[in-house]
């Protein structure tokens, strides 16, 4: 297999991300996001599995009635997936597999990924946004909420990593 192209310099990637974020504000009036799509996916799945309960749910019901996937964020995240796919193919970095530490069994890595995902999903609804929609986009508007979020995010990341480090080695 051919050698992967290197990742971008973080300063270059940061400036590029800032410009994309700025463009998003100029076009839409808001920034970029991601977790909103997963909320809509949950609403859509709930509507398939248990339509009555989903429509009656106090959190997801509104999305279920409005059509779960009919929002701006659906197209934006579809674009994100296509952009990341194009970048990984062009950069020869596309690989199908389970990324994990050498001492971690694939099943264990998937279990950690699921558990971490569950915390992130729950947390993104509690915080009303994620690293993109609240941290990055809110940060660009200098919102106090974004910096409270980012401080909590980084503090918990360091603290948790001290406990779960072996799951990556």
């Amino acid at each position: 297999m051919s050698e992967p192209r290197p990742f971008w310099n973080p300063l270059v990637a940061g400036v590029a991300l800032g410009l994309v974020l700025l463009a998003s504000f100029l076009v839409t009036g808001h920034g970029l996001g991601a977790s909103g799509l997963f909320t809509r996916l949950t609403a859509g799945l709930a509507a398939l599995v248990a339509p009555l309960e989903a429509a009656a749910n106090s959190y997801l019901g509104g999305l279920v009635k409005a059509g779960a996937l009919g929002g701006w964020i659906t197209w934006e995240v579809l674009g994100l997936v296509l952009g990341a796919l194009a970048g990984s193919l062009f950069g020869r970095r596309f690989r199908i597999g389970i990324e994990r530490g050498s001492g971690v069994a694939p099943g264990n890595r998937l279990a950690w990924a699921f558990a971490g995902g569950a915390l992130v999903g729950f947390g993104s609804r509690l915080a009303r946004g994620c690293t993109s929609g609240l941290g990055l986009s809110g940060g660009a508007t200098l919102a106090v909420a974004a910096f409270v979020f980012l401080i909590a995010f980084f503090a918990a990341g360091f603290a948790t990593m001290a406990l779960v480090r072996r799951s990556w080695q």
Partner: protein
Amino acid sequence: MTLPLGDSGAVLALILGFFFGLVLEGAGFGSPRKLVAQFTLRDFAVFKVMMTAVVVAATGLWLLEAIGLIGSGALYVPTLFFWSIAGGGVLIGAGFAMGGYCPGTSAAGLASGRIDALAFIVGMLAGIGVFALLFDGLRPFYNAAQGAPRQTLDQLLGLPVPVILIVLAAAAVGGFLLARRLEGRFGGPLTSAQVLADGGPSRGAKLSAQPRS
């Protein structure tokens, strides 16, 4: 012309998302080991990219407002609800260290072939479902300690926006300098060859320390 355009159509959403995904993957943020290496101090790419992006976008928005291209109050600014936003931040930070992604980077990880990103996404859907089921009971906590609506740092601190921007830029520069001192000590930033070594992520490649040049 006044900005923002207020366009919420599919075409521009796809284009903006495309470049968002291109940058995330290009920065290495499809790789969970690259992402979590931030929290072992080995690789500051997460901090560097986020802080740089915030400074660039915030400076651009301030300039465009100052010359009158963006009407004041035209942009979406989130409102603080202290406990739920701090609590959500803690859960996302913890879940990121355990699972290796956040929502946007999990989509980038899946798009670059990672099956563990799919497991993370299924976990997110489960977590959101649990939140929805518990929402009525969580509501008091969810709405507690509301801050001033749409409050920004300059309003909170009573400082002009350029001062805030300079402080944030200084924090970003500080992060870059700190990274230069620390990253090498813990093995150095992860390269694309390292996270994809030995035929791909599925082989569980060992992340050898990179010789310092």
